């Protein structure tokens, strides 16, 4: 009798764990994000390629990193999906491709925070993407560099002709955090082409290609030329102006359902 009861409990346990794991994955789809950093549509090549900004200043790019976090997909229900922090680093191809799981449905916009939310700027030592080893945490004025863009240009009067933009600041009047919303369907694709809408199916993966065009870093609404502004490495007015520009860097290039 006692043996039977034990066996019964054992079976019950087995069944319950199985059904739990099934329901955990069955109703979700996957979105894979691919970030493509470009200058006017041409994918960035670090160090070796020369580019020209809207002021006709030629430059090369040494370093390009930015944080993507709090990704949400919105429809009428405003479904929030993930808080995850991704450091997109041009020098690390793996960092430009990452996935999140998502409830099935049809969505009208892809939203994310460019940067690290204020809470994680004041909560002590973090790990993984937020590890200070990634060179995105200020040691003299606690807080994350939300976006980093470095290179060289003959237009710069700084040492070794460098330009260096470390854009950060998370509180009060120095806040550079940008909520970015990319609407759907994307209007630059021919109608009817697969990928113009974002529909997530259970157990399927949708890949969203997001293009960041660095040509927009320098202009609109604020003119940032290398000759006048080669460096910004502190929070403040200038950082906010540059963040206003880079908030318009992104667009959805394509959506591919597999």
């Amino acid at each position: 009798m006692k043996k039977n009861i034990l066996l019964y409990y054992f079976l019950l346990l087995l069944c319950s764990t199985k059904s739990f794991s099934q329901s955990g994955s069955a109703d979700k789809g996957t979105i894979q994000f691919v970030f493509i950093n470009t200058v006017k549509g041409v994918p960035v090549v670090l160090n070796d390629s020369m580019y020209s900004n809207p002021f006709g200043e030629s430059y090369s790019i040494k370093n390009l990193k930015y944080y993507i976090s709090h990704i949400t997909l919105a429809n009428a229900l405003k479904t929030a999906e993930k808080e995850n922090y991704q450091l997109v680093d041009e020098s690390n191809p793996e960092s430009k491709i990452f996935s999140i799981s998502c409830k099935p449905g049809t969505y009208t916009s892809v939203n994310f925070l460019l940067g690290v939310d204020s809470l994680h700027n004041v909560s002590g030592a973090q790990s993984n993407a937020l590890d200070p080893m990634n060179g995105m945490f200020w040691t003299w004025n606690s807080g994350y560099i939300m976006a980093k863009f470095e290179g060289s240009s003959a237009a710069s009067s700084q040492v070794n002709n460098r330009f260096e933009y470390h854009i950060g600041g998370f509180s009060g009047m120095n806040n550079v955090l940008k909520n970015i919303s990319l609407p759907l369907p994307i209007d630059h694709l021919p109608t009817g082409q697969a990928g113009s809408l974002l529909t997530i199916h259970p157990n399927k993966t949708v890949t969203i290609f997001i293009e960041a065009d660095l040509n927009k870093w320098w202009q609109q609404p604020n003119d940032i030329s290398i000759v006048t502004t080669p460096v910004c490495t502190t929070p403040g007015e200038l950082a906010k102006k540059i963040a206003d520009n880079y908030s318009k860097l992104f667009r959805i290039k394509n959506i591919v359902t597999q």
Partner: protein
Amino acid sequence: MLQRRVVIPILIIILAAIGTSYAIKAGDAVTLAPTPLQLTIPKGWPAPPKNIYANNPLTEQGFQLGKKLFYDGRLSQDGNFPCASCHQQFAAFASYDHDFSHGFDNSFTTRNAPGLFNLAWMPLLHWDGGINHIEVQPLGPLTAKNEMASNLDTVLKRLRTDTAYPKLFKAAFGSPIINSQRMLKALAQFTGSIVSYNSKYDKVKRGEASFTLNEQNGYNFFKAKCESCHKEPLFTDFSFRNNGLMVNSFLNDFGRMRITGDKNDSLKFKVPSLRNLTLTFPYMHDGRYYTISQAIDHYRTAIVTTQPTLDSALKNRIAISNAEKNNLMSFLFTLTDTTLTKSARYAEK
């Protein structure tokens, strides 16, 4: 009777078996889980403004690991500059007798190293308040070219290849993984739990000692003229104020303005605690005054009254007679805590 003879030994055997199984469990707990510690909050003190250990449970093993890191020169590029090189226990963890501390490659720091105690109550660290959490503070000195001149990558590689550290990280955090987050959390467990509360002043407050007449007069004067900024029992209100020091044209250090970008914060520095004052000389953010006497004279005769951001309480300087100054100094001497400076708990070995 016979029954009892049988039952009692059986009971003893059962109890012994239960006892043994508990003993094994307790033994496991000691080796697997670190021993929790409580931050000391002295009687009568306010609670810390936030719990610095909310995401970093304070444990004996974490504290000991943090202490080892604090005294380990390998955290600096050339091995010569552990945290403790500028923060010496015998000086209440300040740099004894140095306006600026020595850093890597014969360099100087640009501000006076403060004593490290009662940090759990300090909302913002550094003279300009640039550091918003105790865990991220070590990143500053560790990477500064004129301090430890190292970087996280180098330091973590050294710790990982050391024979002792992986075991100590396992004891503190459950696995031998060594990363920056764990290193910084361990350091915070050590530095944040240094609490200084055994000066003569504290003993008087607890009824274990009494002031001399001079000390009592000095205390009365202090409460009337100094306490609005150097608030008891921590002897600072942690605010940022301009106390009217002439700008050092070599350093051009404008303090808090560098952090906030607000010109109203020009020349403001954190009000330092006066605890352990006799050990933490020289005084002010740039260590310009070597004696307590000079520091007091600043307030009565040397405040630059033309600076727009000068603290309103200092607009007319502070009237202090020679007798009042002597009494005040007698009182300030009672703030030295030799329990802190001699504690084996905080010592390297």
